[in-house]
């Protein structure tokens, strides 16, 4: 009897093996495919549910969207003449690494992407590779139920009252932590590139709870494990209306921009579609939909947001003036030294 | 109740050589004739080539040279599984994942016999080794002696023409070993099978065998019945290996065997003999006498009481130690330090090949 059931088990295993091996044989018709990277979470849900289907329908193509990190190493490993992605969507710091390796094209012309005529200047500034389609603002998230006065300055994070309830990031792996380090140089030293002043200021923030994902910072704020922490506005604003005792503050010194950047790979075999996709993402209707979905500030000046979003997001000339764009090209060149220095600094 | 359905086979090993790693000659030009139905032992110290010879017969090793003929058929190039021989290992080599009955049935199953016949023969074989009732046990649930019986039953149930045993009793304690020796001998007679038995234990070989081949360094030193091997060793190695013995080196001259300072020892000669030689005398063939002519004079150094016998160690006037064994008849008054003479019948002194 054991013998029979064993045979049955083997049969099942063999059958599933055959089934899975046969699965990839999906027929690729003449339809072109544009390969992109994109975020997961709520953003990914909206993309999959409506944005990408709309694009596919309009341009009669299919979109293969990779949501699985890490994008850059995968792109690096693939051939430049036949890249794994046509459009790379990632944060600004990674785009700088990509462009320096020749993996993406540095700029778009209005002819290639007509909608960039309507974007705020920061979205195509010299701090940006390709085009920034959205931005978040890195500022301070805080608990409203701990008797704290809402922070007005970045320096408020150093308040000794916050010892044990202060949140930051592992600088080597998180770009918010890196941006904050540059901000410290500006606050306490000669400017964003004054690393010595930044290191000294960072030491003053000890003890500080360090995480690697912004999602973890959100949860720590919600759970009350930290009372104040560095976070992007969208990570706090998304809880608006859910009765959570958290809020986001814009320090007087300004906020750091956390841009969502699109760039096209030079070896793309479907460059027209790739450019069309970038242009599509800048359309006011798409911008509005995603912006209100995940609390990202749109790049397109023509987007009209609903009042609730209009009140908080960076969507006027006046408001975008508060955005400080880090020089990632400068930072990336020093990243290894900074990582080593920071690791020593925070050890004790 | 002979169970064997087939006549026993003779074995002829003809000039067989086996070399390992291209250097060591484990078996060196060995020729043996084993008669059908014989209990034949391969005896020798470890490394003498006895096990390799057995494994050559079984087919686990292939000979570099020579032929092996069993029952008139040349099997030198026949694979193991077609040789139809039973094999019993020192480590028993039972199938640990099978029951006793399944172990014994294995060879019959390989032969594709009908289930009913297998069951019948397994039951009979287990009965033969007094293990009926143990069918459903696993080998790990049996004692060493019981495991060896299973191994035996497994080997004989296929009614082999030849049964090969590689130190089968080596792992058993002394008492069990003696009763198993007897049982194995009984079984061999009942089955009438040709049995080749490898052992390093001379007592075991002497007690069980019809004939013994004493091996040393890959070669056969002597083949013969136990009494022949014991009483008439042909070489110094055989004499030394089997039991206790007194060896005297000397020279043949004028029909006498002379040793040391012109001392003649009792030995049978044919007069024509000359040159150096060795004679050997078993302790039990010597007698302690008074200091008479022709006896080796000396002093008793030790006396070991063995129960039925007393073993004396006598140091002769030439300074040589001689062992002498006397029956304990209850009248002996010899003690350590006594002067005695050691003598033996000339016919009890064996002349060895140098």
């Amino acid at each position, binding site marked *: 009897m*054991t013998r029979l*059931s*064993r045979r049955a*088990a083997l049969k099942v*295993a*063999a059958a*599933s*093996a055959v089934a*899975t*091996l046969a699965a*990839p044989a999906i027929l690729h018709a003449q339809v072109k495919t544009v390969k992109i990277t994109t*975020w*997961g*979470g*709520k*953003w*990914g849900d909206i993309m999959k549910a409506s944005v990408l289907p709309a694009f596919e329908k309009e341009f009669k193509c299919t979109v*293969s969207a*990779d*949501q*699985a*990190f890490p994008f850059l*190493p*995968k792109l690096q*490993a*693939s*051939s430049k003449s*036949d890249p*794994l992605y046509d459009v790379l969507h990632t944060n600004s710091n990674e785009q700088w690494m990509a462009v320096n390796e020749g993996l993406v094209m540095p700029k778009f012309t209005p002819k290639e992407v007509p909608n960039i005529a309507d974007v705020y200047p920061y979205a195509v500034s010299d701090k940006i590779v390709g085009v920034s389609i959205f931005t978040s603002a890195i500022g301070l998230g805080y608990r409203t139920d701990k008797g704290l006065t809402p922070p007005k300055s970045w320096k408020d994070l150093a308040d000794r009252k916050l010892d044990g309830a202060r949140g930051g990031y592992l600088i080597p792996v998180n770009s918010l932590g890196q941006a904050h380090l540059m901000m410290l140089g500006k606050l306490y030293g000669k400017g964003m590139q004054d690393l010595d002043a930044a290191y000294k200021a960072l030491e003053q923030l000890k003890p500080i709870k360090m995480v690697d*994902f912004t*999602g*973890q910072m959100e*949860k720590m704020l*919600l*759970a009350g494990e930290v009372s104040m922490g560095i976070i992007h506005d969208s990570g706090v604003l998304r809880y608006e209306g859910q009765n959570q005792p958290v809020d986001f503050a814009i320090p007087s010194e300004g906020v750091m921009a956390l841009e969502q950047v699109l760039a096209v790979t030079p070896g793309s075999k479907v460059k027209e579609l790739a450019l069309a996709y970038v242009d599509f993402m800048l359309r006011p209707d798409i911008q509005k939909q995603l912006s209100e979905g995940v609390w990202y500030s749109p790049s397109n000046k023509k987007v009209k947001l609903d009042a609730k979003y209009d009140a908080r997001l960076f969507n006027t000339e006046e408001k975008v003036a508060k955005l400080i764009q880090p020089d990632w090209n400068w930072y990336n060149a020093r990243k290894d030294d900074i990582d080593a220095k920071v690791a020593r600094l925070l050890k004790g | 109740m002979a169970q064997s359905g087939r006549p026993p086979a003779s074995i002829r090993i003809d000039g067989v050589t086996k070399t390992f790693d291209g250097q060591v000659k484990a078996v060196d030009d060995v020729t043996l004739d084993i008669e059908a139905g014989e209990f034949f032992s391969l005896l020798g110290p470890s490394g003498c080539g006895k096990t390799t010879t057995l494994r050559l017969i*079984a087919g*686990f090793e292939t000979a570099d040279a020579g032929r092996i003929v069993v029952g008139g058929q040349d099997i030198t190039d026949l694979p*193991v*599984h*077609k040789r139809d*021989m*039973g*094999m019993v*290992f020192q*480590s028993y*080599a*039972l*199938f*640990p*994942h099978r029951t006793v009955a399944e172990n014994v049935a*294995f*060879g019959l199953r*390989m032969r594709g016999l009908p289930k009913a016949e297998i069951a019948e023969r397994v039951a009979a074989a287990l009965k033969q080794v007094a293990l009926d009732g143990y069918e459903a046990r*696993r080998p*790990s649930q049996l004692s060493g002696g019981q495991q060896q019986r299973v*191994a035996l039953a*497994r*080997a004989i149930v*296929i009614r082999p023409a030849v049964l*090969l045993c590689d130190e089968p009793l080596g792992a058993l304690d002394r008492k069990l070993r003696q009763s198993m020796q007897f049982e194995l001998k009984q079984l061999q007679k009942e089955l009438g099978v040709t049995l080749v038995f490898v052992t390093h234990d001379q007592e075991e070989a002497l007690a069980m065998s019809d004939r013994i081949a004493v091996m040393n360094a890959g070669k056969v030193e002597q083949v013969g019945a136990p009494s022949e091997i014991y009483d008439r060793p042909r070489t110094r190695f055989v004499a030394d290996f089997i039991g206790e013995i007194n060896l005297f080196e000397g020279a043949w001259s004028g029909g006498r065997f002379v040793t040391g300072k012109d001392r003649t020892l009792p030995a049978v000669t044919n007069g024509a003999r000359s040159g150096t030689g060795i004679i050997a005398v078993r302790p039990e063939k010597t007698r302690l006498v008074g200091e008479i002519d022709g006896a080796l004079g000396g002093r008793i150094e030790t006396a070991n009481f063995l129960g039925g016998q007393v073993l004396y160690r006598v140091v002769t006037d030439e300074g040589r130690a001689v062992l002498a064994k006397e029956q304990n008849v209850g009248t002996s008054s010899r003690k350590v330090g006594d002067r005695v003479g050691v003598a033996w019948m000339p016919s009890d002194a064996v002349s060895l090949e140098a």
Partner: protein
Amino acid sequence: MSARRLDAGRVAYYTLNGAILTFLLLPLAIVAVFALNPTPYISFPPVGVTLRWFEKFFANEDFMRSLWLSLRVAAMVLVLSTVLGAMCALALARGRLPGAGILTAFFMSPLMLPAILTGLALFQVLLLSGVGRPVWGLVMGHTLVAVPYVLRTTLAVLANFDTRVEEAASSLGASPVRVFFEVTLPLIRPGVIAGGIFAFIVSFDQFPISLFLVLPKGETLPVVLFNYMKFDLDGAIAAASMVSIVMALSVVLLLERVIGLKAYVKL
């Protein structure tokens, strides 16, 4: 006096075992609490009990697709790595191959390399050879790191294997093929199966190698979970972990029932 010493030893023994057990099981307990707690973050003490995270997990198309893929891949890896691993082990232990030691080290080497490098290397090979990233590539990658487990456990059994048992079988009339199936295979089976279970779990939990080898919409569960975590760190992750643990455990138990893990050879 000796009785008192024994008691003290006993107390120390149980305390140490208790501590080790707690150390091993505490993370699981925390995951369980997180999975059943209604808040989207870890709160202690838990504010209630809910199955909403399990509902969210099972209702999520991405999770379900990836769970199913992970199970299928792990099943194939189980089959492939046991066959390959057992054959390699037999060849290495029995084949009298020149340089068997070096070969063993070679087959074990995927364990020494950081898996992320293995994944990256495979990814490049697949892309450069133009085959893309088919599921069999993923299976191959997992098999590569799973085979050493089967190899190790099988070699361990073979090291204690009395080859006379096989000789006995052949002297009883079993041809080499029958010796293999009747004796060798049943005796090395506990080692092969133990290795196979490792292989299944190694594949089911595999993250670094999968990271590069999965396709969009063809991700395995650990990859989906990792990416989910970057955006939505909530109880669904904990629920997914609980489900994975239960799945892995049931596969182990199932294999144990069906094929039998009980080692009848003393190892």
